[in-house]
């Protein structure tokens, strides 16, 4: 039976058209700026405007030259990797703990673990700077990793908790009834089934560290300058197409990470819907 076609007056038509027009503008607004800027990284000249003065790879060569970006990229990757390990391990354990059983103060602990997401990052950075200074953790790799981990833990807790929500606990009980000790049941049942959530938490943790400017502004000495930290200086200094080349490189990494997350989500949904 076909549903009756409702009456559409002029108000409906104008309203519907307006909604679609604004939405279309919104989607263009989201993507166009990034797409419009990208070709400038191939500019033969040193201006950041069209028309391009020939095509060249020189700005990419500048980005991948020995200095100054490569040491910064190395810092970003190592600090990001350390943050990822620390945040994923502590955050995943915490998410398991939160979903394991009921206990007093559970909501408060959950809120505490999420709170670094809502506290303005300048405040966290300043607080950590002042607290770490007496211990020599300012201008150090360790200090930066600890601060980034605090910012990254909420993301891991949220993604892993979400995975555990859809997790069928009878499977752990089934494993136990078949004689598996708790740790074996965890390693062979819980862990594989929640792995996609843990991995996407890890990706979020890495991105949190990799994108951070503010904490690096407070805690990183020149030895620990990350890519965003150096980029912040460059944007304040002078603009040349090498910034855009670097941006294109970072966007490529972002697309790769987004694709990873999508793949993990697809896998998690498949694992869950398996009969």
């Amino acid at each position, binding site marked *: 039976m076909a549903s009756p076609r409702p009456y559409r007056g002029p108000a409906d038509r104008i309203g519907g058209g307006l909604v679609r027009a604004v939405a279309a503008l919104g989607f263009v607004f*989201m993507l166009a700026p990034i797409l419009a800027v990208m070709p400038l990284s191939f500019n033969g000249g040193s201006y950041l*405007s*069209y028309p391009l003065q020939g095509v060249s790879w020189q700005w990419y060569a500048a980005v991948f030259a020995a200095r100054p970006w490569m040491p910064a990229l190395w810092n970003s990757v190592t600090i990001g990797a350390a943050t990822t390990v620390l945040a994923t391990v502590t955050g995943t354990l915490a998410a398991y703990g939160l979903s394991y059983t009921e206990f007093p103060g559970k909501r408060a602990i959950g809120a505490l673990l999420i709170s670094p997401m809502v506290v*303005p990052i300048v405040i966290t950075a300043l*607080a950590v700077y002042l607290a770490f200074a007496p211990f020599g953790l300012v201008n150090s790799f360790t200090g930066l990793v600890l601060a980034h981990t605090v910012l990254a833990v909420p993301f891991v807790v949220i993604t892993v908790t979400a995975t555990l929500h859809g997790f069928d606990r009878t499977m752990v009980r089934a494993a136990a009834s078949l004689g598996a000790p708790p740790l074996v049941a965890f390693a062979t049942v819980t862990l594989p089934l929640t792995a996609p959530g843990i991995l996407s938490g890890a990706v979020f943790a890495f991105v949190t560290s990799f994108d951070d400017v503010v904490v690096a502004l407070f805690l990183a000495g020149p030895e620990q300058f990350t890519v965003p930290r150096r980029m*912040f200086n460059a944007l304040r200094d002078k603009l040349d197409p090498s910034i855009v080349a670097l941006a294109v490189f970072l966007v490529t990494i972002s697309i790769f990470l987004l694709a990873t997350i999508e793949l993990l989500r697809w896998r998690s949904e498949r694992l869950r819907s398996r009969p």
Partner: protein
Amino acid sequence: MSTAVAGTAVAGAGDLGRKLARANRAKQVTAFALLAPALLLMLLAFVWPIGALLTNAVHAPEFRDAVPKLAAWMEGWDGEALPDEAGFALVAEEFGRAFRDRSLPRASTRLNYERGGMRSLAMKTGRGAPRLAAPYRESLVALDPAWGDIATWRAIANASTWLTPRFVLQALDLQRVPGGGIQAVPPENRVYLDRLQVTFTISIVVTLVCAAIGYPMAYVMAMAGPNRGRLLFLLVLLPFWISLLVRTAAWVVLLQKEGIVNGALLALGIIDEPQQLIFNRFGVYVAMVHILLPFLVLPLYSVMKSIPRDHVRAAASLGATPASAFVTVYFPQTVPGLGAGCLLVFILSIGFYITPALVGGSRDQMLSSLIAENALGTANWGLASALALVLLCCVAVVYPVFGRYAGAKNLRLG
């Protein structure tokens, strides 16, 4: 017989209850053990630093630590007339000692916040202390006439306490009136309240613009078929994944005087000369809306997707036009998602720092910039902490509302 059976049953039940309680306790211990590493980390690298920072806003013992005897003596001073010879003698003794053990510079910085020019007076006094002799009142006034001014002594009295309201007052553009009481600073000297107002104006405008653009976007995404919906979803998600700095950089390139937008508008003949699109409020709005829009669209979309389409169809079958069905049936169900998105955007924009710093002018800097400036620039930790306290209070007012209406459950990260 029956009593005996009942007795065993009760004993068994008690035994079972104990076992159950023990098992529950064991589970709770396990849960806490799992939480311990994360909690320890949060405590050491978040809770304790934030607590110390907020204490910093009112705790300023530098002066008292440097000249304890003088500070203790000042507590007995009435503040009405210049102190007697004992006070002057203590100044000479304590400033001289603090100068020798090098605690005077820090203490005089603290003094200088109370009254401009006190730093040089304190250092001069400390340096000249060995040459001072009784009567100290005459020799100190001879060293610097400021010692004969009661305002100097009031500044010392204000600096002598462990706790000071001075930075919090300053962050709210208030000042102490000599002799007690608090008043607003003259409007032409207002600095911090203006920043607070700018922060709120920018946050509200950005939230409203995000809602106006984001609602139709989420609606179109929710109404599209599964494949097109997924594609549009990824279109919103991709910018969300691109580094904030990269997106800000793109706007700097686009909006500058010789940039792409000005070039396009000139070529189309819409404008005759390049317009100032960046380093002003317009640039801040554009860049911030671009960065924060996904935070509104994503929670709203996940709420919209969960609304059964039958509701609107039922309304239509009862004779509602699409517009009235939308207003009376569909929109009310999306309010939680809209609220969650708006609050999230608002909370995030209140704390924005990097984007206004790069695309805004000096009049578009928000509270966060002021905190960073006072911390990294002038090293006025007391004031930076007090401003952080004000900003944190703003978030603390909004966050519970966010928690109630939205919670983390509407916050899907991708």
